[in-house]
């Protein structure tokens, strides 16, 4: 649908990448809603995946009692809704991530506090 307006309607996008010091990555740990919503993380897309796993995620989710139990070899990764297998040496940009991308991960066998997805 086109814009219904009384005059010229100009659009100024406020959230394009150039407005931020670093691009945004949205990160969500499925079935762990102690972190009620996915998180907004300013992060260089040149970050290597292994650094994301070893440095960024622990800072975000380390206080969850199940975080220490994650078997990182079994984690399932999603770029938005698409499952993919990350190359740990590769950067986020090389693996299709950009400003305002969603990264979700699933940890089979771990279903949150007492299995409540909390």
């Amino acid at each position: 649908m086109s814009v219904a307006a009384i005059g010229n309607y100009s659009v100024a996008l406020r959230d394009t990448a150039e407005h931020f010091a670093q691009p945004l990555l949205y990160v969500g740990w499925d079935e762990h809603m102690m972190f009620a919503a996915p998180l907004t993380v300013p992060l260089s897309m040149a970050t290597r995946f292994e650094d994301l796993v070893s440095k960024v995620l622990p800072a975000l989710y380390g206080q969850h009692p199940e975080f220490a139990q994650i078997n990182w070899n079994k984690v399932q990764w999603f770029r938005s809704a698409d499952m993919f297998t990350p190359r740990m040496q590769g950067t986020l940009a090389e693996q299709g991530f950009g400003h305002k991308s969603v990264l979700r991960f699933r940890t089979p066998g771990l279903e949150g506090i007492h299995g409540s997805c909390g």
Partner: protein
Amino acid sequence: MDQRVEKKKHSLKERYAAMTGDLHWETTYQSMDEVFPYEQYEGIRIHQWDKFEDPFRLTMDAYWKLQGEKEKKLYAVIDAFAQNSGQFGVSDARYVNALKLFIQSFTQQTYYAHRSFAHLGRHFRGDALRVACQMQSADELRHFQNQTHAIANFNKYFNGLHNATHWFDHAWYLAAPKSFSEDAFSAGPFERLIAISFSFDYLLTKPLFVSTMSGAAHNGDLSSVTVGFSAQSDEARHMTLGLECVKFIVGQDPANLPIVQRWMDKWFWRGYRVMTLAAMMQDYMQPKRTTSWKQAWEMYVESTGEALFKELAQVGIRQPKGWAQACDGKDHISHQAWNAFYGYGDTTAFHTWVPEPSELDWLSKKYPDSFDRWYRPRLEHYAQLQKSGQRYTNKTLPMLCQTCQLPMFFTEPSGPRWIAYRETQHAGERFHFCSDHCEEIFSNEPEKYSQAGLPVHQILQGHCFKPEVNAAAPGFDPASAVLDYCQINQGYDNGEFKGSEDDTNFASWGGGQNPQEAQL
């Protein structure tokens, strides 16, 4: 002898016609289109404005008299409540947090409604609708003032009440109600009427007002109860206006129906998302519990809505698209919201807490299909952490929905195991949503919603610091600087309730008892 001529008394209808009829005339110096510049562009066609009848036919003198009497009664109660130190007689200081969230969100929306209806009262071509809108504008201003005056007494004793208008404009969590109101305000006059009068006033405000007022009564806040009662007859008038307007607009031209239906789909969902705050207020912030959100929803929305949409089917209107999903959400949204606000409790101008075990039991009983399975374990985990001195807080900013601007804490309609993610591309950018309906609202008007100033993004762009702040200084604490910018007094307005100044003060005043006993 001359016979005296009896003065004929006008009937109410004649009186109304005499008092309002001359408010309308066809202009000649300027074209009518220029006098009413906003009436055409939304695509709504009205052929016979004189067919719209104000369902109440209130004249201004009758209106002022009626409202004046209500004011006198209301302020007698508000004064008496203050003089008897009623604030110490509420069930528990936690209750005041419901008032905080109320004045920070819904009271501010009431003021927007006042402004919005003042504008509508100028810009419809039909005089009867203009008069009705002007009265609603005056009502909304009255309600805003009444709520503010009643809560002002609490402000002398509790934190988190002193700066509601500023918080409404600046605090991240109030972007949901604020964006709702501004979204409506920046729409055309017909859409705004459907948004506020029908979708919000008619469909959704009942659980908010009726239940929060009965909650106030059970928690000893007679002042707020009376504010509610005083507004009730006005609310009934607003609801009727909303319904009459829908029928009138749809009846005027077949082309109006699809436009009105789309607005209904949109505004029901926008309003429903704002109601998430009311849901958590009801289930978590009223220490003495009466009705659950689920019960209120079933009583005041679901059952009345079913009947309403049967009636509206005659003019071709169907239930809003999100109706079924909204009804399914009654088992979940209050818990999901409280879980989110508990985690982000450091950043709000009200307190959060884990309910007491007996209160958790109440929730288990009221929500047999969801609470024990999904929500109770989280809360018990937080309680345990707190016992060991580690009150849980979530330190990372949440991802927000581009449309409703709430954090993306809502789960898939198919079940509460997965957070719902929706995504679309527009103008080369990615946009994210909490639900199909928020995505659809965006996709119908991407130009409008792609410009949203999402608070989390504004914070990360550095727009939410005071001008004198030096973000490069060593030891700079961005979270604290943002709270400063919002004028939230850290350690007083925000964070955990247990051990807060509100908590300790209330205990030392002997609060929660009969106020006379407390003074002895």
